[in-house]
């Protein structure tokens, strides 16, 4: 995949070596890698780097966040809308531990991140020094790679490795911990050399044409083939190749939550979202197709439901860059390893041009059923209270499907992902694998820096918003133009829904009180409005989208609405419930 990413520039090698500090070497590396934006928070052990940063303000923009978790989520948002590596700085001890949630989130959602943490002086390691914590061992399970630097001479090649590992193959977070002495240490700098090979690291497996031929054969013989795709299409920057594939093959295609927006949501072959709160047709027909073609997705349990009843009738073709994903959850008939930007065109070349009108109609029939039972009452409700769905519908109408939508976690996330319309890729930013509440507000900040020309709307619940509400300060200070749309049902809605359905309505600690969000925003100099009536929705949404700069719109929706359809936990995808 790295071949398709912007290659880092090798800095002009100075004719003779310069004497610079480790901190300067860190910043030189960032500049050489094409980094322009850093999210971070200073502190004792990273002060030499911040001191050096003072002289780099023309080349590197630093966004001061309000909490390190906000910093890393912002870096994630940046990476997701820009397709580049997100960078975050934090100090040692608590600064570093505050990154852990974001690292875990980036790990499970394959987001390229380079996190740089300060560390106590090398001679103090292991002495329980002030703000010392064993960040390498804490972050090992949640990083693709991590490394502690104790000597400044290591910095150029370690950072080169960090960027290479973060962005190549299946991307992921990398953490580099740098002791304070290494940041201060002067050394003879010989320039920066980007990394493009590590002998023990194979970012992408060699493409095996014989398997692609087998896959093509299966597809050509299929009567009811079905394509399911994930974020791999977006990470591989293979949206065009993917569209060419499905359009030639004529195969109905459904996305996972992470794959959403890789193809336009209203594409004639698009049949919706998979999974627990996905669409009716794609879930039911997963268990009726004869060939299932999975592209860049990992068969999460929220997608498969009960595994031993998942697509048992189908032959499975699995395209993935990560060989360890093959057979991990679902047995593959034909594995196609490699970067889908390379494998998809080969596959497209081998398949016959086809259409499956009857098979596609079956998806449309299910869609109609779903529309009557779930979609209509959600998008065009007749109830007194507003629904989350009609808010998203209004947003679609006014944004024309061109906005980046960043969601938090819970009911609003499922509703937004079910009903949002997208015309372009990298538009649906959400915490898919880890399900991190508090993700949306800081991620939206980063998303805006990653896509400065696009409208960024953070759709957040009343619970999640209060988890990282402090990032309003970042929005205020850096004038970040994000639109904050709070869908307030005065409950921790998703947990409440489960308690209603599976725990006899025993609403245990889901009744959450909120502050006056508009007043809170005002305190940060951010304009806003709160509405509770349908008649105000259109105008309020318009006002938010047309407002110059950040804006907060709180929409009070029905308290006890549920998200349907739903595949109850432990059930097969075919047992999806419409109510």
């Amino acid at each position, binding site marked *: 995949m790295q071949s398709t990413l912007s290659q880092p520039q090798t800095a002009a090698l100075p004719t003779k070596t310069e004497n610079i500090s480790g901190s300067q070497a860190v910043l030189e590396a960032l500049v050489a890698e094409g980094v322009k934006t850093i999210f971070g928070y200073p502190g004792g052990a990273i002060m030499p780097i911040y001191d050096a940063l003072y002289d780099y303000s023309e080349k590197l923009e630093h966004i001061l966040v309000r909490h390190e978790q906000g910093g890393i989520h912002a870096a994630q948002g940046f990476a997701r809308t820009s397709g580049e590596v997100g960078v975050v700085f934090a100090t040692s001890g608590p600064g570093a531990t505050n990154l852990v949630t974001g690292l875990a989130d980036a790990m499970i959602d394959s987001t390229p991140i380079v996190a740089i943490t300060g560390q106590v002086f090398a001679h103090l390691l292991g002495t329980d020094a002030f703000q010392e914590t064993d960040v*390498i*061992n804490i972050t*090992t*399970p949640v990083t*693709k*790679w*991590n*490394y*502690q630097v104790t000597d400044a001479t290591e910095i150029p090649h370690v950072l080169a490795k960090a960027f290479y*590992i973060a962005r190549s193959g299946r991307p992921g977070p990398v953490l580099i911990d740098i002791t304070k002495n290494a940041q201060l240490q002067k050394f003879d700098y010989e320039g920066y050399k980007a990394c*493009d*090979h*590590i*002998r*023990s*690291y*194979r970012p992408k*497996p*060699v493409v*095996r044409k014989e398997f692609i031929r087998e896959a093509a054969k299966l597809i050509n013989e299929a009567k009811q083939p079905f394509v399911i795709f994930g974020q791999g299409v977006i990470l591989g920057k293979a949206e065009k190749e993917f569209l060419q594939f499905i359009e030639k093959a004529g195969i109905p295609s459904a996305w996972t939550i992470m794959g959403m927006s890789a193809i336009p949501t209203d594409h004639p072959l698009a049949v919706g979202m998979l999974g627990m709160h996905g669409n009716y047709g794609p879930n039911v027909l997963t268990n009726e197709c004869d060939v299932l073609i999975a592209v860049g997705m990992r068969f999460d349990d929220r997608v498969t439901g009960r595994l031993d009843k998942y697509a048992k009738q189908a032959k499975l073709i699995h395209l993935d860059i*990560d*060989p*360890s994903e*093959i*057979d*991990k959850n679902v*047995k*593959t*008939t034909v*594995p196609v*390893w490699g970067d889908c930007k390379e494998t998809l065109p080969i596959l497209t070349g081998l398949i016959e041009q086809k259409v499956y009108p009857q098979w596609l109609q079956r998806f449309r029939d299910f869609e109609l059923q779903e529309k009557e039972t779930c979609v209509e009452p959600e998008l065009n409700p007749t109830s007194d209270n507003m629904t989350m769905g009609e808010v998203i519908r209004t947003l679609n109408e006014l944004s024309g499907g061109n906005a980046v939508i960043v969601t938090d976690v819970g009911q609003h996330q499922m509703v937004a992902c079910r009903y949002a319309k997208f015309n372009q890729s990298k538009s649906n930013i959400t915490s898919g694998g880890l399900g991190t509440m508090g993700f949306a507000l800081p991620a939206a900040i980063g998303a805006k820096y990653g896509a400065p020309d696009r409208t960024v709307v953070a759709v957040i619940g009343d619970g999640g918003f209060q988890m990282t509400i402090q990032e309003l300060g970042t929005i205020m200070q850096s004038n970040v133009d994000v639109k904050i749309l709070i869908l307030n049902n005065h409950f921790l809605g998703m947990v409440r829904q489960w308690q209603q359905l599976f725990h006899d309505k025993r609403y245990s600690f889901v009744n959450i009180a909120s502050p006056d969000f508009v007043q809170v925003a005002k305190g940060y100099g951010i304009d806003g409005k709160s509405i509770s009536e349908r008649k105000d929705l259109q105008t309020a949404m318009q006002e938010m989208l047309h407002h110059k700069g950040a804006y907060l719109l709180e929409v009070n929706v029905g308290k006890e609405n549920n998200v349907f359809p739903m595949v109850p936990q432990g059930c097969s995808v075919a047992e999806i419930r419409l109510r």
Partner: protein
Amino acid sequence: MTKQEYTITVYTENQIGLLNRIAIMFSRRKINIESLNTSPSEVEGIHRFTIVIHEVEEVVKKLVRQIEKQVEVLKAYYNNNEELIWQEMALYKVSTDEIAEKVKVERLLREYGARAVVIRKDYTVFETTGHREETDKLIRVLEPFGLIEFVRSARIAIIKASRGFHEKIREFEQHEPSEQVIENEFLDKQQEVFSM
């Protein structure tokens, strides 16, 4: 599938922290490591982990792929006991008086191929090398005569079918390696693996 003993052999770069990165892959899945040895390999600068676990093959297979995915891991293999030559070493400390007094002890030690490593007035340390059952048996035999201390090493194992790592490492150093470097048991045993 039933659980059985598998030996996982991992070729790695020599880097601090890698032991932890590999060990947590087991603990995350609540798999007990029965024995773990790290040592140099036949290739200079390349380390070799030998890890023994008791698991079903399906789990071991997935685990090995996850291990191989780690940046500093060059290659990981898993084998059952039939595919390996292996040894473990054990040390036994017994009272020298006991051995001197009881002729039977001396005979036993000979029988089990034990070798005296240290002989002092107060105690003697014996060493044996072999499979787990063999070293275990000697403990039981020595116990009645006052076994003061016992310790056993991790398993070290040679894969019967392996041709070593010299050729492989040269491939790894290439920018565009040939297909055989990327191969793993998935391709080697394609027919078995693909059965649905």
